[in-house]
């Protein structure tokens, strides 16, 4: 069996739906929370710390009978190398890489790390712009103007 065929089988063991592959190892559950996937009422398979030729190790997320919305690129925050595979009849019908968005959608559960930010007290959704430098990704809170490293942003679990 060829490597390509093996990979196809590994990726597409759902009949219809979406496979998010090449998730940074250990971040699959963050992606589940980011997509609010537990409320989708779709069959979901999560693979954690699987071997990967390109990444060394990866996570993978398969959601049956679900297709990504426009804001799928927010996945890139936790999985910059992620690949979105659209599955039809067990075959990969479409495949594309996520791109880091310029803004974080307003319903994404990030919390500003500034203890003096008004978003800590008032009932507002955190609103962030993504700032990518050569080495790091930062989130800029549009309320208080403070930059926080993506790795240090507080994340409100569902």
């Amino acid at each position, binding site marked *: 069996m060829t490597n390509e065929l093996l990979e196809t089988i590994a990726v597409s063991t759902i009949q219809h739906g979406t496979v998010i592959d090449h998730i940074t190892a250990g971040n699959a559950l963050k992606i589940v929370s980011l997509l609010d996937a537990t409320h989708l009422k779709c069959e979901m398979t999560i693979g954690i710390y699987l071997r990967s030729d390109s990444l060394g190790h990866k996570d993978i997320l398969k959601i049956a009978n679900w297709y990504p919305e426009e804001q799928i690129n927010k996945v890139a925050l936790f999985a910059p190398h992620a690949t979105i595979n659209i599955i039809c009849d067990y075959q990969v019908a479409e495949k594309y890489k996520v791109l880091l968005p310029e803004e974080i959608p307003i319903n994404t559960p990030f919390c500003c790390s*500034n*203890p*003096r*930010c*008004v*978003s*800590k*007290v*008032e*009932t*507002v959704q955190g609103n962030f712009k993504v700032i990518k430098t050569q080495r790091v990704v930062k989130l800029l*809170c*549009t*309320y*208080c*103007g*403070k*930059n926080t490293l993506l790795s240090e942003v507080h994340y409100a679990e569902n």
Partner: protein
Amino acid sequence: MTTNFKHRDILAIHEFTKDEILHILDHTQKLKSQPRENLLDRYILGSCFYEPSTRTRLSFESAMHRLGGKVIGFSSSAQTSTAKGESLHDSMKMLEGYADVVVLRHPLDGAARLAAEAIHIPVINAGDGANQHPTQTFLDLFSIRESQGTLENLSIAFVGDLKYGRTVHSLAEALVHFNARLYFISETMLEMPEPVCELLRSRGIKFSFHQYLDDILPKVDIVYMTRIQEERFSHKLEFEGVKTPFCLTVKHLKRAKPNLKIFHPLPRVNEIDPQVDDTPHAYYFQQAQNGLYTRQAILGLVLGELL
């Protein structure tokens, strides 16, 4: 270039282009030279100060009165329904029904932007936490131009609390438009924050860090003194770790350039010796007075009565 300020929120200095800044300064000059007593006589200002203020609140209220307008509002959160648990959002929605423009000072960073999102009338940020104080920056720029004859290519020293001082953050950001050379004089724990420095670097503005005022004073056109802001420190121990703050005296001025002017956003505590007041270098009281005309200009512009 057309500069349309009608219904615009005034939240942060980095949202203004060089032309827009100069437009505000030009209107400030016009109003200082030729007062207009009835310019805003059909408008009401909502003056919302959730934390103490003297100069800013009084200058906004005076500005509105002197333009023929009226003022409603409050000068502390104790006078509001905050104690009953009302959110800032709801307070602003209520005020939207009573006033034509809101001036807001609040202890939390980003409060002005939240208010602006909640309501359709213009919101003018009069200081939100340690974040921004854009109208102070406009009056600072006006005063610098007035005292030096130009804003371009000046050498400016910022002294004191550069970490929590929103006035110095805003002014440094604005000066990127004017090719200033900046000197930051402070204790290590109160240095100018990295995000401001990053912006300066990205715009090719030269700046340097220093611990002693004496070395720098002979080189600069403006010295901007600031108070150590105890109320902004997260922990009392951090504040108590600050050594004796800088104090500018007449002795320092012996080596000053003839055109040197001393600025301070006030209130001062002990950063400037009172004997400095009588020297030709002192400019902080004129600076405070210019706040009246600057705020008149901003009110007139956002209400659409100045073009």
